[in-house]
Structure formats: C-alpha cells, structure tokens
C-alpha cells in the first residue's frame, strides 16, 4: 500500500538535485511537489500490479507534461521542472540487488557452480531491469516535448 509519508521523502531528494542544478528559489517548492506526485503515481501503479518499468514511465511522463505546461507560464525553462523530480524515481533496490549479485559472482571461487550461476543471472536480470527503468524515466520525461504543437519550440 502506498504510504503518503514515505512518498514525502521524494521532496527533499529532488530539492537537493534542483539546488545542484541551480534552480531558482521560487521554483524549488514546485519541484518538490512534482517529485512527491511522481513518486506517489509510481508507487500507486506498482500497488495496482503494474510492472515497475510501466509505472515509472507513467510517473515520468506526468512530470514531463507538467513541466512542459508550467515552464513557460512561470518564466522557467521546462527542464527546471522536468529533470530533478524524476531522480527520486531511480530504482535503488534494483540497482543494489544488481551490484550485490555482481560482486558475489565476481568474488566467488566457483566451487559452487550452481550458486555462481544464480548470482550471475540475478546480476544480469537486475542490471537489465535497472537499465530499462532508467530508459523509461528518460523517455517519459522527454516525450511530452515531442508531442508539442508547432506553435511551441524546443526553447519553451
């Protein structure tokens, strides 16, 4: 079940990155709010049985659409609202599993062939999943810009 308290952690997570990207102070609360919404959508999608790649794509697409609509109205370039809020969607657990399995496979002495094979498959599976999620996040955040009407330019 999606916990509102847990998704609130997305706000400080995105705000730190927004400050690294030198986003203006007045835009920081909006960035934080979009990040919380994105994390909520992602967690809710997973709760409803969607694959993690699909739920993260939908969340990132919503971020991209909000950024595209909000940017020009608030005098900000759309990446201000599109980039930092997507970062809390990064799949830490999947990346950790991939790294742990990879390290176990690399450092094993191969006396237990079955375990070594299991570690390798776990590392490859988690690694590919993490890569697919990253791709989904990037595509989701950028896609709304590609669907823009001709009256808008990439500058918006």
């Amino acid at each position, binding site marked *: 079940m999606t916990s509102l308290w*847990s998704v609130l*952690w*997305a*706000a*400080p*997570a*995105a*705000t*730190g*990155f*927004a*400050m*690294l*990207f*030198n*986003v*203006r102070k007045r835009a920081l609360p909006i960035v934080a709010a979009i990040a919380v919404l994105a*994390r909520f959508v992602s967690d809710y999608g997973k709760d409803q049985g969607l694959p993690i790649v699909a739920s993260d794509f939908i969340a990132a697409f919503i971020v991209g659409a909000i950024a595209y609509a909000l940017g020009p109205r608030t*005098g*900000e*370039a759309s*990446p*201000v609202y*599109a*980039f*930092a809020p*997507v*970062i*809390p969607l*990064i799949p*830490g*657990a999947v*990346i*950790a599993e991939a*790294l*742990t399995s*990879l*390290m*176990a496979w*690399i*450092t094993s002495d191969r006396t237990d062939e079955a375990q070594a094979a299991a570690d390798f498959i776990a590392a490859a599976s988690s690694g590919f999943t993490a890569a697919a999620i*990253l*791709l989904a996040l*990037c*595509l989701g*955040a*950028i*896609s709304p*810009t*590609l669907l823009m009407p001709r009256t808008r*330019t*990439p*500058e*918006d």
Partner: protein
Amino acid sequence: MVPVTDSPTDSPTDPQRVQLEAILQTALDMGVRVQMCGGYTARVRATTQRVALALGAERAETWVSSGNIGLAVYRGGWSRTSVRNTPTLGVNFTELSQLSQLSKRSGQLTLDQLREQMAQITGTAKRYPLSLVVVMLGVSCGSFAALFGADAAGIALAAAGGSAGAWLRHEMVRRQFKPFIYCLFAALLSASVVLGPSALTTTTQQAVTASILYLVPGVPLLNGTADLLTSNYLNGVVRLTRASVILLGATLGLALALLVWGYA
C-alpha cells in the same frame, strides 16, 4: 591569379559586414551560454537561430556538437561563419531560463540592448553556496535511503556519506580530474562512510546504495535521450556515453568499497 581589389565591400570596416559580424557573434554567444548551462541540442539550435534572425539575418544555419557550436548567417548577399568551443560550465537552470526568456524577446531589442542584457544575466546569475549544496545533496541521499526503506541510522549514514562524497567530487572537479576518476573516488568515500560504521544500521544495503546516488548523471541522461528523440543522434550518443562513464566510475567506486570493507 585574381588580383586582390580593395573595393568598399571587401573592407573589414564595411558597415554591412561589421553588422553581420556583430549579429553572428551575439547569436553565437547566446547559443554557447545555453549549451553550457545544460540545454539540449534542439534548444541550443532554436535559440541561436531565433536570435540571429531577430537581429536581422535573412538566414541562419547552425552546427551543434557536444563541444562546439558553429553558425553561418546570411544577409544581402553576404555571409559570415564562425565556430566556438563550449567548455563545460556545470548545469545552471536559472541562467538557462533567463536566456530563454531573453531570446524570446530578442525581436523587440536592438543588438546593443540584447548584448547588455546577456551580460547582466551571465554576470548576476548566482549559484547557491557550495556548503549548502553539499549539505542538500547529503539530505537528498538520506531521503533516497528513506525511500528505499532504510532505518534512521541508515538514513543518517547515507546523508553523511552523500555529503562527504559530494564535497570530494567538487574538490576533484576543481582540480580538473576526469569524470571517471572523480566519480570513482567520490563513490568510494561515500560508501566507506556508510560501510565503516555499518554496525549502527540493519539496512546497510539501502544506505550504501542511496549514499552514491548524488552521482547519477541526470542531465546528461535526459539531454542525451532528448537529443536521440529529436534526431540529433551523434550528440545524443556522446551525452549518453558520458553518462555511462560516470555511472561506471560510480559503480567501480562502490564495488571497491564493498571489497575493502569485506562485503564482497
């Protein structure tokens, strides 16, 4: 051999030529700044062309790579071309937003007014203090740990590791180390800060993963994807390759820390 003539139109001081040169350099300045602030290729191209046309060029053609921008402007039978390097400056979305707004108004401004306002933007777009950014990146890493389900000690360790690594990365960037090297050492330090006192937490794995996430190359990844999807394939591949190198450095740093602290 054709003799060189000193006709008025060939003179470097010819008003038409001087004006076209000023348009060229101003539009190029704008494109270079947009690229340096973190704009993707289509944005850089659109801004450069918009400014050149607004200032009076009849036609403007751009060539944008990951490290250079070229522009050719045409007017009244004349053409001028120039290429400029775009050194890495670090992402600056405040300046990017201000430059975007300025380029949209460029049709209502004279060349001198535009140059003056550009200088104002680049001179006044302040950054947050380094200490604040380092602390906030630590807070980000702590928040990631919380999102991954870490306990309170794990959150605190991830925050401390993230801040320490972010500070080291800044110092190494200042000393002009390459991305692979500074990401490797920053990840090694961050993970070590978590793994050293890992007895304090029961969620070491979540904390150590979160502690290096400040190294995620978000802007190169997103800009690279944007470039690929807007048919700027070469620049897209370059940006994604840069992101891959950063990720590889961070991964190796983490793997090294796991080996050093006996977790592998």
